[in-house]
């Protein structure tokens, strides 16, 4: 690379109270280069992104634009300088349409400054075509799945035709097809001279998209180096600072009786005739493309959505439709996909969030026992290696991956007999991912039935005893562990199955 980097950080430090999120970190982004940022949960990646985006100002150190020091006083400055950012958590306005969100503040105009809706919808449609996404620009953003929200954020960033594109875990909720489409679009941008910063906990994606990688550990810079010549294990070692064992250790467990039985479950226009069972000790994966209806099935089974026909029973007892409380009583737990809206109450503390699923069991007489509440939180925080300062801190200040751990803790603490997990490792780093997998395997070993929705194919293949594949609201395949391969799953997921 010749010349000054398009955008760079020089010796940047940033603290939040006692937490030192970035310590003397430097990073250079060059035109025509895709740069990866790797690190465990809480390593400081999102903080670095927000510093580039003008959301945070560095305590010490500088931001450099084309080699010249600049001060971004806010996100507007960074946008002005040609920096487009996809944040880790989608931040769409729910009451605006998809297209309005994409062109917020930059709507195409007609005479007298009136918004040209036709042009706006046309542009949005063309963006979605480039990304290969079937989303309607005129639909409201409320109710979009987390993956669709992510895609809208991507379209929004692309529409800025920026010189620097920063992406904080854009693929965390996407499945293979969407990731491939995104990568080909990003690749094209890079060839046109765009500088890219890319964050992902799926290391394969870093290897396939990026030329250079910078690793952070506990806020400190560890290395910046070319990706070529680096192995998967090298990268993990830099992130974690030690060797990791095998990643997907699902052990064969004795299968017990049927714990969850779903019969011809139908919700009109969403999914049709879905039947399956999960036995005690079994991990069943539900695979498929984004929008295939997997999360919707999970939500209906747990009772947060209604169903129109069919039945669900747990341990042989039928479950009433539409009652999460009854489902929990029967031993069901659902770790939902959208942690900001469904998984967590952002304003509440870590311990309150974990306690929320156990308000009954934490009771001593009339009142909640504060010690029991705290012990429950502490116990699970330690088991999941949560990175936190105090249990009374709001979950909102935790890093994305650590928030996900709180959601897991909250549900595992209910000691469920049937555990449904929707993208359980979304945004979780390699080390903890192995830990979550070990935990799921252990839970199955204790006789819990696990239904796992995942867009991460290696995770599906590594963890599942059986793989169910959905396509457009129907089950299209059931594959045993032996038959499940990347190819057979993808074929069924895209509707190409024999």
């Amino acid at each position, binding site marked *: 690379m010749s010349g000054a980097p398009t955008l760079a950080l020089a010796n940047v430090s940033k603290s939040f109270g006692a937490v030192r999120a970035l310590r003397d970190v430097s990073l250079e982004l060059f035109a025509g280069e895709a740069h990866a940022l790797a690190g465990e949960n809480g390593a400081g990646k999102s903080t670095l992104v927000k510093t580039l985006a003008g*959301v*945070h*100002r560095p*305590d010490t150190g500088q931001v450099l634009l084309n080699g010249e020091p600049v001060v971004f006083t806010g996100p507007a400055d960074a946008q002005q300088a040609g920096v487009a950012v996809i944040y880790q958590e989608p931040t769409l306005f729910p009451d605006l349409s998809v297209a309005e969100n994409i062109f917020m503040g930059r709507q195409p105009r007609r005479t007298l400054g009136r918004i040209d809706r036709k042009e706006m919808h046309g542009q949005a449609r063309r963006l979605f075509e480039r990304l290969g996404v079937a989303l309607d620009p005129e639909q409201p953003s409320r109710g979009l799945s987390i993956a669709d929200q992510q895609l809208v954020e991507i379209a929004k960033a692309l529409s800025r035709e920026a010189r620097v594109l920063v992406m904080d875990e854009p693929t965390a909720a996407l499945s293979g097809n969407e990731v491939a489409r995104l990568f080909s679009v990003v690749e094209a941008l890079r060839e046109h001279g765009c500088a890219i910063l890319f964050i992902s906990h799926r290391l394969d994606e870093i290897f396939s998209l990026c030329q250079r990688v910078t690793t952070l550990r506990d806020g400190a810079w560890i290395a910046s180096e070319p990706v070529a010549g680096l192995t998967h294990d090298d990268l993990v070692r830099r992130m974690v600072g030690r060797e990791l064992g095998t990643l997907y250790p699902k052990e064969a467990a004795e299968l017990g009786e049927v714990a969850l039985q779903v019969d011809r479950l139908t919700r009109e226009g969403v999914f049709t005739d879905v039947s399956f069972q999960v036995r005690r000790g079994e991990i069943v994966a539900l695979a498929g493309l984004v929008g295939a209806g997997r999360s919707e099935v999970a939500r209906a089974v747990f009772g*947060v959505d209604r169903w129109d026909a069919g039945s669900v029973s747990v341990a042989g007892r039928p479950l009433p439709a539409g009652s*999460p*409380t009854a*489902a*929990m009583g029967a031993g069901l737990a*659902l770790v*939902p996909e959208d942690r900001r*809206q*469904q*998984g*967590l*109450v*952002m*304003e*509440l503390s870590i311990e*309150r969030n974990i*306690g*929320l*699923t156990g*308000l*009954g069991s*934490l*009771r001593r007489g*009339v*009142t*909640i026992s504060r010690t029991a509440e705290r012990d429950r939180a502490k116990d699970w925080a330690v088991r999941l290696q949560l990175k936190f300062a105090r249990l009374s801190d709001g979950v909102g200040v935790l890093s994305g991956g650590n928030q996900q751990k709180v959601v897991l803790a*909250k549900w595992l603490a209910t000691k469920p007999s049937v555990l449904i997990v929707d993208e359980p490792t979304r945004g979780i780093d390699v080390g903890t991912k192995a830990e979550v997998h070990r935990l799921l395997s252990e839970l199955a070993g204790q006789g819990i039935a696990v239904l796992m929705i995942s867009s991460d194919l290696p995770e599906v293949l590594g963890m599942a005893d059986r793989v169910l594949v959905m396509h457009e609201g129907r089950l299209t395949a059931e594959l045993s562990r032996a038959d499940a391969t990347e190819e057979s799953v993808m074929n069924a997921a895209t509707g190409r199955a024999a």
Partner: protein
Amino acid sequence: MAKVLRWDVLVGALLIAVFAAGSLTSPGFATVDNLSFALGDLGEIALIALAMTMLVVAAEVDLSVASVLGLSSALVGSLWDGGMAIEAIIPIAVLTGAVCGLVNGLLVTRLGLPSLAVTIGTLALYRGLAYVVLGDRAVAQFPPDYTALAVNDVPGTPIPYPIAVFVLLAAAVGVVLHATGFGRALYAIGAQEQAAFFAGIRVKRIKLLLFVISGTVAAFAGVVFTLRYGSARADNGVGIELAVIAAVLLGGVDFDGGKGTLGGVIAGVLLIGLLRNLLMLGDVSTEIQSIVTGLLLIVSVLTPRLVSLVRPALKGSP
């Protein structure tokens, strides 16, 4: 740092400041008699504020409380006029309030309507019903045993009976809000309803219950009001929903739900009470009193936002 600027502490300080200012400027203010009277005058607002606190924490609101109070008063008057025993009238009036709350709650939870809109509607509806029941008449001459209960102090203290009831109820609501699962659920519902629902909390049932409690308490306050003034009228308590909401918001409960403490609300209620009393001692017209209530409402909504804007600037960086 954050603790220093806690809102409920701030309101507590303001309360002391108003008290000090009152004692200095108005000679009749800081006497046991006047303060006891001021407390008594606050009874209905204080009682209703307890129920309102729970509603607002859960991100709902009930604007119909003053009308329920009026309807309850009108019922008491009309039934008493018709010769019914007061022992039977009081439960009927309170039960009617529960039904009013149930209607509010059903409209909000079953039809998914916003409570602001629903209770503006029932604010007009219930007041209208009060006029249907009693017309423009005023009914008086209630049994002295009962009116005495509404006015007199608990023997040996300067605390009027309605305030004693308030203290007991406040203790109960304090425990419920801050130490029970029900309270935990209220804060979760107010802050992120969907996550609360996903956690197995029966959101609709809880909201329905809150509206029923609100209606019941408002009707009970209507009985207290009627006996205290010894006069049942359809227009009793017009507009006090604003004083109640001002007290709750002044107390630091966020109108968007999920935040606030009962301690703060009690400070807010007392603050409103002292101000009303001072204005009354100063012979200030009711128009000005209503202007003051309005200003307080705006200030209490505005100030926490300003504080949260200013606070990061004080700390140096966002």
